[in-house]
């Protein structure tokens, strides 16, 4: 075939791409709630990363002169039963919350997406075996499964993260596999087969990019659940161990003193609530901005 060759003009290509990116950014920033979520998440991350700089005092240093003191200029969020500064403990607590929440979701996604992809693509025996295992796991509620796993693995932050991650796998496998089942029947997958693509290419280039969007949405929705789950595990004594600061563990300790020192429960509770809310808002915003179907 001979047609006059045309210069592809890479400069134009770049501008079009940059334009698209700018549009997505604009769509994100046009949503006040999404921006609020992003700011909230950024704040939590800053707290976690710079906890040593932000904390007025050592979070684990007891001070028996000021036990159960209310919020004051010295201790903005008061002190606990050992006289430890609650604000400092909140900053440090952001670390375990983020680690357990985000890492566990990441872990679950990394494991579950390939499994769901393979099961949905090859179907037959592989699919049947994988999905029956997932069905068994799904028979347990998320938290029951996580608590059970954490109890078996033993109490520690790493094990709590593992337990939360494993407990999230079945849902993500299920969603991925369902999306793959639908996607593999689409015409463009058949078109790719007709064009001579092999299974690996089809899975990686045709199916995966098209199933990722609901998976990402699911993942962003489970991050807050995992953060709350991490707090619950710590609350139950299955996660972070004392004296390490953790929002769930702080809530647990606050229980006894709730009538005398309500700030002990209110501040970690607010921290968990606001963090989960921020991740939810951020997730929604990212999805709305990136969804290819919403591109003009």
């Amino acid at each position, binding site marked *: *075939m001979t*047609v*006059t*060759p*045309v*210069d*592809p*003009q890479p400069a*134009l*290509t770049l501008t*079009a*791409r940059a334009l698209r990116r700018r549009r997505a950014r604009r769509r994100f920033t046009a949503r006040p709630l999404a921006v609020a979520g992003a700011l909230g998440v950024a704040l939590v991350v800053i707290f976690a990363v710079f906890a040593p700089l932000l904390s007025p005092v050592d979070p684990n240093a007891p001070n028996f002169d000021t036990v159960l003191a209310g919020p004051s200029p010295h201790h903005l969020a008061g002190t606990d039963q050992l006289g430890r500064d609650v604000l400092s403990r909140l900053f440090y607590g952001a670390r375990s919350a983020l680690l357990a929440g985000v890492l566990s979701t990441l872990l679950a996604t990394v494991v579950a997406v390939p499994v769901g992809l393979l099961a949905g693509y090859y179907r037959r025996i592989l699919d049947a075996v994988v999905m029956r295992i997932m069905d068994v796991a799904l028979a347990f509620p998320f938290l029951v499964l996580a608590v059970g796993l954490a109890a078996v693995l033993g109490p520690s932050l790493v094990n709590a993260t593992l337990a939360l991650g494993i407990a999230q796998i079945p849902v993500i496998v299920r969603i991925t596999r369902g999306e793959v089942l639908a996607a593999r029947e*689409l*015409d*463009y997958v*058949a*078109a*790719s*087969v*007709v*064009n*001579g*693509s*092999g299974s690996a*290419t089809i899975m990686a*280039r*045709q199916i995966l*990019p*098209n199933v990722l969007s609901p998976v990402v949405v699911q993942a962003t929705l489970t991050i807050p659940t995992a953060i709350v789950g991490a707090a619950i595990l710590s609350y139950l004594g299955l996660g972070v161990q004392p004296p390490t600061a953790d929002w769930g563990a702080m809530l647990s300790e606050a229980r006894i003193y709730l009538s005398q020192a309500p700030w002990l429960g209110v501040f970690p509770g607010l921290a968990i609530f606001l963090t989960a809310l921020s991740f939810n808002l951020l997730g929604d915003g990212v999805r709305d901005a990136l969804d*290819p*179907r919403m*591109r003009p």
Partner: protein
Amino acid sequence: MSTLLEIHDLTIWFDTDEGPVLAVNGLSLALEPAQVLALVGESGCGKTVTALSLLRLAPPNARVTGQARFDGKDLLAMPGRQLRAVRGRQISMVFQEPMSSLNPVFTVGRQIAEVLRRHRKLSNRDANARAVELLDLVRIPAALRRMEEYPHQMSGGMRQRVMIAMAVACDPKLIIADEPTTALDVTIQAQVLDILRDLRERFGTAILLITHNLGVVADIADRVVVMYAGHKVEQAPVGELFATPQHPYTIGLLGAVPRRQTHQSADRRLAEIPGLVPVLRQTPTGCVFAPRCTRRTDPCQVTTPELTPIPPDQHVACLHPGTRQEVPA
């Protein structure tokens, strides 16, 4: 000229929950290089599954037997690796639904370029340049700008042209076009047919055209195979088929084409064929069309009609062939 594609005794059974169903029975046909062969029939007659089975894309519950020799090699018996080399390079396909045949998450330029990179081992730059040429070839205006667009930014006709550009990217010898114009409106349909005709003339690409639209057949096809309930009932060069249709089913199909009304037929209703395509649960005895046929006689119920030649170049599978225009009610 040697035959490009030769289908011999293709039979396809579907295993369904209600037992096996016969979709295609003993279909044979031949396609020469640079020829346009139309496979015509109503919905469910086995046209599409025939096309899909050629590239071994038939659904997993289909049992396909027979031979499909392409360039001397049997597509149905070929090992997977060899088949992948044929797909896209030598045979490519255009689907019915342009709205869903392109991957929504990549730009059309990238999708075309990818085919070139994979089969032609072109560099990114060369593949992109070639993709622009291909878009130009299928008459997409401002091809360079369109490269960067996503499928949803294009109309159905434009997407179908992109599909054709992808299909011809590697200079295939055969394009299978499964109802390529069904989802398009009439003016766009004509443009797409023009492009296909152009490809055939310029590059000698053979086209296996699957359609139920006799207007499309008249426009572009060289030869026509009429299918009914998985059986070839008539085969003819396009002129003969329209001038002297022999099989009562073909005549019925032609009667169902709307024509400009003349004064004596102003109140004429479009002729229809009563009844539905049967679902065959076993190999039929007798003529498959007999239950709906106005020429039916007792032998039709028991004797399977053989494909018999009618000179010069027509074949019909009917015990009572003839060109009677009006099928008596």
